[in-house]
């Protein structure tokens, strides 16, 4: 980023576009703060648009332009996680070797760093996405993704961010491992596309929230649903459909009631009615309390990106620490680095067990 900016002075128009384009990150108070850093206080009656015009006419040096760019950049919204299980015994040396090959392959475009921690090989891939349709101060978005290869006895779990670039890098690396081993590797991913029954798809999620060991389910705060076409009549699949919204609310209420009352979901007549109409859960967010120290309240999320086929499973976990008064602020934050691994592994294990059980009976 810095080279292209430092070689080319930014015009007032470019600065104006930069300031104008992000109303949230460069709000009126933030613009006022930028001016105040120079000792300038515009009238409180100045609108945001007027502030943008006024500030864009000020001279900025390179460091100040970089500061403006960084103020606009959205810290990348935390990506959800997904995983692939590579069957068979793959040597850590093979994994490291293909990462080295990949590093050479993308030299100059991506920056790849590797770290081995015990049975895990951690790969960081830094890259930029550039949208040439935008002016040069706002066209670049930097990313840093982490991919983990976790070696187990007879398989390897590959944990990655659930974004296209993560998938592409992992596919590339798996291809290289296969070439190196001169044979294909069978993989396992959570995919319910063959499960064409609404209640089984829903069961996948209800089991997931109730089967977590060492946790007590506290609440289900949101669900996403989809619907099978009934009697071969194709229906529009639209999450914005108000009628559909109503079914989402109904199913969430039913699931919450089950959580609080401990009743069996399948005995609920309202649930049976929604099942009959082809509705099933495609995503869920729930809170579970840790039953052992440090007694965090965890907020889990699990969902299928492809809701129609229940493919592309992804998940996330955040936590809210227990206060000294044994209460929770309900402000959930992300775990730092390896702490998340334990909880992500819990979801991965339960999801896999559920998936295998459900698909076994097809």
């Amino acid at each position, binding site marked *: 980023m*810095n*080279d292209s*900016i*430092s*070689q*080319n*002075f930014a*015009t*007032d*128009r470019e600065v*104006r576009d930069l300031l104008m384009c992000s109303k949230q990150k460069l709000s009126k108070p933030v613009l*006022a703060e930028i001016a*105040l*850093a*120079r*000792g*300038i*206080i*515009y*009238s*409180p*009656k*100045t609108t945001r648009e*007027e502030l943008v015009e006024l500030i*864009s*006419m*000020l*001279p*900025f*040096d*390179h*460091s*100040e*332009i970089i500061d403006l760019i960084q103020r606009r950049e959205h810290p990348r919204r935390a990506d959800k996680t997904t995983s692939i299980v590579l069957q068979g015994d793959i040597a850590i040396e093979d994994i490291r070797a293909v990462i080295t090959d990949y590093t050479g392959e993308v030299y100059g475009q991506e920056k790849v760093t590797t770290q081995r921690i015990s049975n895990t090989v951690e790969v960081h891939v830094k890259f930029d996405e550039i949208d040439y349709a935008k002016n040069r101060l706002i066209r670049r978005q930097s990313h840093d993704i982490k991919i983990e290869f976790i070696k187990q006895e007879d398989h390897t779990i590959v944990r990655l961010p659930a974004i296209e670039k993560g998938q592409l890098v992992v596919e590339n690396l798996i291809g290289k491992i296969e070439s190196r081993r001169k044979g294909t590797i069978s993989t396992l991913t959570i995919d319910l596309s063959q499960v064409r029954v609404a209640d089984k798809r829903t069961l996948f999620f209800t089991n997931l929230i109730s089967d977590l060991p060492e946790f007590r389910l506290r609440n289900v705060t949101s669900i996403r649903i989809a619907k099978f076409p009934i009697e071969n009549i194709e229906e529009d699949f639209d999450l914005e459909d108000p009628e559909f919204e109503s079914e989402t609310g109904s199913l969430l209420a039913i699931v919450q009631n089950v959580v609080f009352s401990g009743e069996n979901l399948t005995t609920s007549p309202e649930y049976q009615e929604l099942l009959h109409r082809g509705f099933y859960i495609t995503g869920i967010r729930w809170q579970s309390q840790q039953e052992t120290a440090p007694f965090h309240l965890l907020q889990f999320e699990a969902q299928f990106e492809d809701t129609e086929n229940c493919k592309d499973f992804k998940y996330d976990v955040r936590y809210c620490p227990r206060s000294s008064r044994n209460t929770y602020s309900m402000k959930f934050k992300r775990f730092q680095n390896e702490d998340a691994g334990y909880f992500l592994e819990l979801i991965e294990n339960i999801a896999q067990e559920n998936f295998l059980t459900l698909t076994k009976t097809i």
Partner: protein
Amino acid sequence: MGENANISRMAEILSKEVFAEFLWQQIGPMNKSWQCEQKEAHDTKEHPSDVVFFYDEPYSHSRTYINCDLKSYSKSSITSDAITKAAVSLSKQIACAEQSAEWQSLYVHDDMDYNVIGLLFVYNHDGQYEGDFRKRLDSIDIKDLHHPAGSKIIILGPEDIHWLDNIRYEITYMRGSQNSDRLPDREFYRYFYPQLPGRRNLQLDKAKAATLDILTSQYVILHYKDPRHSDREGVIVFYRRADATAQDFMYLIDYLRLHGLIKENITVKIKTLHSGNLPVEFQKGMQQYIEGLNDGYQDSSPQQTDISPLAELIKEIKLSPFSQVRTTFSDIPIGMDYE
């Protein structure tokens, strides 16, 4: 000497020495009080104008009048509370000045489009203040301010004043120099405003003064014509950033190039108040910038080296630190009371 006399003396020094060098002009009486137009809302009968300056705006057909509130504080008096109170008071002054026939008759020329801005000048008279003055501004709640739409107030703290005073001193020193770096008299120089793609430079000939937008930025660029050689010009860039990197200098060079200031007949000098690592960063930045220019450049003549004429001109740019001075504008507290 009483407070009024001290304000007058400080205003006099600022007028004749500091802001005169930035081509500001003083107008009307110094240290003058005038009737408040919103006595109930402002909770005062009068507002002060310690000194009023004016300059023409480069990017609009208008004249800006700067109503100054001069403060001279000891280190311990430069508090968030004191600065906030002073800012609120100045904001009221500006709100009234725009409406006051009395103020306008004292300070505004006839038949001019104009705007009024406030300048809060916070001088540290014991020279002991080393804190981050900008942090003192954080407590100002913009909702408490009164200055009208289109107006603004500027707050210059001890470090800003030190910076501007040193530019002033360097210009004066260079004007008196007998060497090749001698600056011509004021009539031969002006402060530089780039043509902005988003705004025409509307008063290129008329607007010569350094506006507060320029004086509060990292670059103050003085552009002069050599009266002895009509085709020779010079540019002096006063660059404030103490921790400037090679990239900062590359960007500055590109700024000068883009605005037509790197030419055969123009001498370019960059002046910094700090030395430290800046010469090294400047050299790196200049070399990297030239490397970027020379990418793909091949002169067709075999006698020539593979360097562009522009690169040769860039190599001529000199960076030098200028000596630090500290002027005494006041040796006692001024402006500790608020109406």
